[in-house]
Structures are given as C-alpha cells and as structure tokens.
C-alpha cells in the first residue's frame, strides 16, 4: 500500500487498537491532523493545552491499562507537553506521544516553531525517535508501542518532521518487533525465588511492601491471594493504593512521609521486607540508614536498576511481579505457616490502636478529610478517583476507601500540580460507567482550568471537588512547621468565583460550607451529568498528619494531637 507518512500514523494507531487520541494541532503536525479528519477508526479529543493532552492520555492509560496516545505539534506544542512526559516517565505509564517537527531541510536552522524535541525528551522518556524517512515509520511506531508497554513501562516519544508525514512510501505494518538490544527480563530466577520463600518461612515479623509495579503488572489479584494465603500483613505505597481492598484485614495502610503510624512502625520493626514492584522512593523510606533497619529485603522488580539502588536487596528477583508472585505462591503453599505471625499481628494491632489514622471535627468549618470519607461512603467502588498534588492528595490516599486497582489515579513521582483534572478526563473517557471524581485544591485546579472546555465539549462529566483552604496548603504546612510560620506567597485569599467560572464554560458550580450542602452538591452534580466544580470551604490550617519530616527516620513521626514523638 503506497500511502503518506501521515496516513501511516493513522493506520498504525488503528492497528494498535487505539480508540482515543488526546491532542492539539499545529503547523508541523497538520498533515497528520488532515488524516485524522478523514478517518473514523478512533476518536480525537481536543484538549485546550498540550500538557493536558498528555495528562489525559496518562489518566486514560492508568484506568484502562492500555497505552495512552497523545499528539502535539512542534516547538511550543512539544515544550508544553514536556511536564506530562516527565510525569509519565516518573510513574512508569505506558504512552506513545507523537509530535510534529519542522521539515528535515529546516532542522538545525532555528526555524519557526523549531526546538530540539528529542534532545529535550531524552531526559524524560523511556525512549525516543526522530523519524527521518517515512520508510522507517511503521517499524518505529510498532517499536514505540512495544517499548512503552513492556518491561518497566514508560512514555515513548516519536518526533516526525513535516516532510516525512508528506512522503509517500510503501506501508506494511510489522506483526512483530525485533530489537536485539531490548529484551526485558520478565521471568524471575527460580533459585532466588526459592531462597526468598525460605527467608519468608524463617521470618517472624515479615511485611509486604506493595508498590505501583503491581498495578502496572495487573498483578493485584495474585497479590491479594498471596497475602491471604500467607497471612503476612501488608503496607501499600501511594502508587499501590487499591491493590488490596480497604477492608482487607491484613492491609495496614499507606506508609511513608504521610503514611499511618502503624504502617511506618511496622516497616521499622519488621525482620523481612517483601517488596513487590516498589522502588524505595525517598518519600517512602525517610532516612535510609534507619529504614527497616532490622530487616532482610526481598525485592521483586522488573527493572534491575531499581534493585539495590537505594536499599540493598538480600534476595533480588528481577522479573514481572505477576509471574514471580504466582511462582512464589506455588512454593509457599508448602512452607509458609500463617499461624506463627500472631504476636506480630498483635504488635501491629497495638500500633493501630495507639495512633489510628484520624482527624477531629473540632472547628466550625468542614474538615477536608470528612469530604473524602463522605465521597467514599456515597460512591465507594462506583467512582474512580483522581487527585491533583498537595494536601488534598495525601488526605485522599489516607482516607478514601479504595477497593480495586486502577481506581486511584494521581501524580506520584513528579508531583505535578494541574495533573488531576485533565487526567480525570482521560479516566472518564476510559471508564464511562464510573463516576469520575477529581479531588483538587484551590491551587492545583487553576493550573489546568481551561480543560473545563474540553469536558463540556466532549461530554466528560468530571466532578472536581476543590478542598478550598485559600492556601497552597502543603507548602503552607511546611512553612508553618519548618519556616517559623512565614507563609511566603502561599496565601490564596484572592480567588475566582468558581461557580461562575464553571458556568461560563457550560458546567455547573457549587459553593459548599456544610455537610448537608456537600451531600446536596455531590448528588446534584452526579444527576446533572456535566462537568462540575464543587468549591468546598474547608478548615484553613488543617495539617496532613502523621508526617515524617523530610530526611527524618520513618519511626519519628509528627502525630495528630500534640506532635509528640513516638
């Protein structure tokens, strides 16, 4: 088939079963948009900013498990997308991002809207390509989807000059990929697995440390079974929320900087860490030399570079979590005895009673944590939850009753304010049967507020719940605690009228000051089935607790009441 490079892009996307592309057109990508106009194999969703296109594709990918696809133009189109690429890279989200580039003859001449896109994206993608000949396009696109989705997933960027999308060549989409230099290791070493199982059998206070890799690997079901079978308690990272059901008796809670007292103490007291698809991030470990000091470490990860990067692994297992857990279960059936953990579980129960995750309704204004719990009570499993970045994000991770993997979509590694709303659009698009809730803050929501237009146009009724404390709350909290209450540039008292703002785009808005108003607004927003901003006036000076100060030991937490140390 003799077709243009632009047509090849369309054909390849259809061959990869892509049903949604998020993007924004411009000069250098116009040949491809001309072909998008002519086709009906997938839907294109026009966001109102390139950054939002990438976040929407991330949200879509996270909720569906498929590769997210976004399309942008050269120059500023691409540079606007960089934050999204970096976000997807940090959180290992499989993505293919296609950008236009100035024609080959103009590359290097400082042409209009020219920027060295692959030079920039090299630092924030799993891999990238500059396609200099349309003959290479079918292979490159096939490889891009393959690389994005296999091994440790990540974004792949394909930069295509305008004359290459115009070039006519023979098109045959390859069935298979052959990259001799890329063969991710997915099967765990049998001897290491056996050793790890022996270590589990010998441990008295073992602890599962569940990470986001479980969700990427679609291994939550197997992990739930493994946890149940062994009777070993588990902590989840922020990225792993929803791996275990919130009612699972063996789930302690989230660990880390804002983890629960019990989760952090369990990690400090355990004698064997069983890390599954987790990467010992600094927000999880606190001070490394004090982290799980008494414990051996089993580390299962598909990325060899994640193993022994920060914490030495005594039992390193490189492989896909799902397959490794299945093999571990087969061996463990014979050797792990759940009964022996009774004293350990008692200790953890004691920790949980000593300082449960809680908040007090001790002021006139609504507490943000209450709003999150309330949505959990009303919607529970029927909602997919995204967040922006800041206090509301941590409260959501702490207090929402997650019941399944891929229910919680948030920017973990990069911590990108402005992620939540566009991501929620992608989440809604990927799961129309669920209510899409975005918990956000009065700071974050304004960072991609233009997406109200996308939501209205494409009928993606995302409900944004703004936990509005008139502060850049997390930074304000650090200023209060560590900068002697000098609240530099974090007071957001000057604000738009969020109701009128939503209405001006064709959405609905609510101001909420009481519990009744909250319930009514949420109910009405769900019924109206249109994009909503619910402006909830919450307690201004509420802090996220517990808190492990940056660089501190995990067991040294600021706690709710009088910040006494454990």
């Amino acid at each position, binding site marked *: 088939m003799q077709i243009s490079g632009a047509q090849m892009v369309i054909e390849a996307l259809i061959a990869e079963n892509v049903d949604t592309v998020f993007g924004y057109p411009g000069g250098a990508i116009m040949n491809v948009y001309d072909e998008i106009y002519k086709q009906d194999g997938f839907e294109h969703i026009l966001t109102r900013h390139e950054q939002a296109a990438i976040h929407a594709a991330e949200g879509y990918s996270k909720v569906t498990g498929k590769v997210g696809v976004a399309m942008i133009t050269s120059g500023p189109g691409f540079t606007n997308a960089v934050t999204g690429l970096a976000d997807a890279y940090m959180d290992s989200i499989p993505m293919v991002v296609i950008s236009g580039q100035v024609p080959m003859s103009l590359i290097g001449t400082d042409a209009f809207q020219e920027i060295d896109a*692959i*030079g920039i994206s*090299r*630092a924030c993608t*799993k*891999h990238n390509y*500059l396609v*200099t000949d349309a003959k290479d396009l079918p292979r490159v696109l096939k490889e891009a989807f393959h*690389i994005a989705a296999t091994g440790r997933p990540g974004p792949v960027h394909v930069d295509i000059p305008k004359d290459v999308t115009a070039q006519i060549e023979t098109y045959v989409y390859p069935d298979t990929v052959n*990259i*001799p*230099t*890329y063969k991710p290791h997915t099967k765990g070493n049998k001897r290491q697995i056996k050793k790890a199982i022996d270590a589990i059998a010998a441990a008295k206070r073992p602890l599962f440390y569940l990470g986001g890799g479980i969700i990427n690997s679609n291994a939550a079901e197997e992990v739930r079974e493994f946890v149940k079978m062994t009777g070993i308690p588990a902590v989840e990272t922020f990225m792993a929320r929803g791996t275990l059901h919130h009612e699972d008796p063996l789930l302690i809670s989230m660990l880390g900087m804002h983890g629960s007292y019990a989760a952090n103490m369990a990690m400090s007291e355990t004698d064997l860490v069983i890390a599954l698809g987790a990467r010992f991030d600094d927000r999880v470990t606190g001070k490394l030399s004090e982290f799980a000091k008494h414990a051996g470490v089993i580390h299962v990860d598909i*990325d*060899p*570079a994640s193993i*022994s*990067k920060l914490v030495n692994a005594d039992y390193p297992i490189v492989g896909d979590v799902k397959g490794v857990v299945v093999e571990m279960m087969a061996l463990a059936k014979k050797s792990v005895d759940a009964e022996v953990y009774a004293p350990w579980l008692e200790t953890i129960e004691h920790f949980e009673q000593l300082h449960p995750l809680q908040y007090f309704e001790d002021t006139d204004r609504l507490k943000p944590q209450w709003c999150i719990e309330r949505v959990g009570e009303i919607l529970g499993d029927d909602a997919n939850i995204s967040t922006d970045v800041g206090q509301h994000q941590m409260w959501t991770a702490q207090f929402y009753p997650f019941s399944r993997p891929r229910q919680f979509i948030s920017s973990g590694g990069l911590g990108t304010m402005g992620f939540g709303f566009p991501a929620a659009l992608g989440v809604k698009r990927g799961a129309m049967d669920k209510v899409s809730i975005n918990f956000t803050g009065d700071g974050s929501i304004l960072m991609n507020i233009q997406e109200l237009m996308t939501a209205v146009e494409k009928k993606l009724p995302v409900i944004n719940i703004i936990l509005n404390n008139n502060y850049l709350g997390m930074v304000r909290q650090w200023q209060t605690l560590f900068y002697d209450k000098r609240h530099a540039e974090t007071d957001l008292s000057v604000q738009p009228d969020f109701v009128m703002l939503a209405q001006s785009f064709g959405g609905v808005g609510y101001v909420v000051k009481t519990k009744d108003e909250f319930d009514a607004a949420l109910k009405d927003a769900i019924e109206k089935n249109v994009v909503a901003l619910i402006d909830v006036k919450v307690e201004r000076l509420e802090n996220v607790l517990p808190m492990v100060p940056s660089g501190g030991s995990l067991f040294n937490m600021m706690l709710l009441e009088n910040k006494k140390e454990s």
Partner: protein
Amino acid sequence: MENERRVISVIVANEASVLSRISGLFSARGYNVVSLTVAPIPDTDYSRFTIVTKGSVRVIEQITKQLHKLIPVLRVSETEEMIEKEMVLVKFPITENLSDISVLSNAYNGKIANVSTESIIVMIADEPKRVEHFLTAIKRYHPIEIVRGGTVAVER
C-alpha cells in the same frame, strides 16, 4: 564510599544520538566520566564505548544497570579483567633534548611521529598507569601540548 576507578565497555547499536543518550545518562545522574572513547565495531551494526569512571561499588553497579536500561545498548561489561591501553601525542619544542625524548618514548611503546622546524611530536601507547608515569617524566622537557586518546580496553 571509596572511589574506585573502573573501565566499562558498552556495545551499542549504531544509530543517531546514541552518544548523547550515554553522555546524558552520566550528566543526569551525576556520574563521573574520566575518559570516554567510541568507535564502530568492524563488520557489525554496533559500536563500542569504553568509559572510564570513578565511584563507589554501589554507584558503579548503578551505572552498569542504567546503561543497560538504555534501549540501544546491547551489552555492558565491567570486569577487572581488562587489557587497557591509552595513546598519547605530545609536542615538544625542537630545542629540547631529542635523544632523551626519543629514549623515553621508546620505553613507553612509542616513537617520534613527526618533526617540523619548530617542534617534535611523539606518540606512545601504554597502560593508563604507565601513561601517567610517562607524562610526569617528560615534564622537564617542557611539552607544548599533550593530547590523550582516552582508554580503550578489551576483556582478557
């Protein structure tokens, strides 16, 4: 955290921007580069990088793993069992003691490579440690310019 000097040999697919992928990795993650050489491997689609670096055992392990993670990287080898050589060109004023310089360069697998009215250029090729000795020894002959080639290495 003692800083060990290690030689890492990396075989990569011959494709555009592979050099910047590797140098970008070193700068992004704050790894040291003592020297870096690259040339195609004859009759293949691959090139060999020889990178001399310094770091603790943990850092060296990370470097090899991170290099391997790059998509165009076929093989990374980092052993102590390497035969290492480095070539050096040195330019001296013609007025220096030429027989001394000639004897010294002979002792380090070298010879006189070029002579002009103003200067003499010698080349040597030897193990990195011996190269250092040579460079110290010739200081007294007032070298005008020293060009080091960087280490190349092959496994025993």
